[in-house]
């Protein structure tokens, strides 16, 4: 069994330094990996990234993160990423990472994701340059997620995003803002590869549990949803029939 801890939207800054750390010590007794589903900072500044690095660096399990929209606000995603990587975190944007757990392998493919809306109620690459750029950004990220997931050859596969791949986990948010909370293109990329689990954040008023049209379990781990420092999902690697 692979134990996957996850949390998103911790929105750390100097004023929140150390709030999560007590719950993260000895995380290895409860989990094999910690996934961070973006919005790690408030404004995406390098100084806030250092707080995140101190909070999640040096844990007794590997930490795998994607950035969120807040982590882009100061227009320094590369610098933020570098600070987190220097602290030993793995930061994914279209890449994958593989972790060995008790003879099994866990593969994580991660992207920030973006908005656009859900099937039948979404934007398209049409009209003004701003609109085309908006949806094109989502399309490129979804393609990048599809490629990353497809490249994994591990016993257990997990998709990690900040934005939501399905509308189910947004229930509680105003439907009018769904196009800013996620995109079905992410869900389609996930269903094309059928990972064991898809984890996202971003929607503070949504719900934890949902499922893609293809049957992949989706979990919204935004901290205001899970109401704890992290939550843990246990996935049993497929038994190989001989």
């Amino acid at each position, binding site marked *: 069994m692979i*134990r996957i801890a996850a949390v998103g*939207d*911790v*929105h*750390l*800054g100097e*004023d*929140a330094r150390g*709030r*999560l750390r007590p*719950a993260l010590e000895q995380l290895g007794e*409860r989990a094999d990996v910690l996934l961070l589903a973006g919005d790690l900072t*408030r*404004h995406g500044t390098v100084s806030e990234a250092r707080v995140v690095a101190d909070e999640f660096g040096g844990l007794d399990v590997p930490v795998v993160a994607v950035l969120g929209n*807040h982590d882009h*606000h100061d227009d320094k995603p590369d610098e933020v990423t570098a600070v987190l990587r220097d602290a030993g975190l793995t930061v994914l944007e279209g890449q994958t990472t593989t972790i060995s757990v008790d003879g099994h392998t866990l593969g994580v493919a991660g992207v920030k994701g973006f908005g656009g809306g859900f099937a039948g109620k979404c934007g398209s690459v049409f009209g003004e340059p701003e609109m085309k750029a908006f949806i094109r950004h989502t399309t490129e990220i979804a393609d990048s997620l599809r490629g990353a997931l497809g490249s994994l050859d591990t016993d257990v596969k997990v998709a990690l995003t900040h934005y939501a791949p399905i509308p189910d986990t947004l229930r509680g948010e105003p439907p009018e803002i769904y196009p800013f909370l996620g995109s079905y293109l992410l869900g389609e990329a996930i269903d094309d590869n059928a990972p*064991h*689990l898809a984890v996202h954040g971003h929607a*503070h*008023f949504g719900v934890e549990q949902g499922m893609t049209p293809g049957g992949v*379990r989706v*979990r919204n781990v935004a*901290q*205001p949803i*899970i*109401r*704890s*420092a*992290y*939550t*843990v*999902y*246990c*996935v*049993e690697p497929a038994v190989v029939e001989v």
Partner: protein
Amino acid sequence: MTAEQYLAARLRQALAEDPRTTELGVRVTVRGDHVLLSGDVASPERRAELEAVIHDVAPELTVLDDVKVVPSEAPVGREEIR
């Protein structure tokens, strides 16, 4: 009613864009002379900052603060994904 909707929209925008708050996860409801805030923030300081920003935009409003600081303890259970 219409004025209240525009005011609520201005307050929401202020909470999202003011560097003191940058909170997108706080609900803002205007009812007459009162504004109700609800949702979660990451620290006690941020609750106070919400009220400060609201006061700057609409000093005439009384704030009813139902915002919580999100719990940061270790979880109780875990879920088996099948």
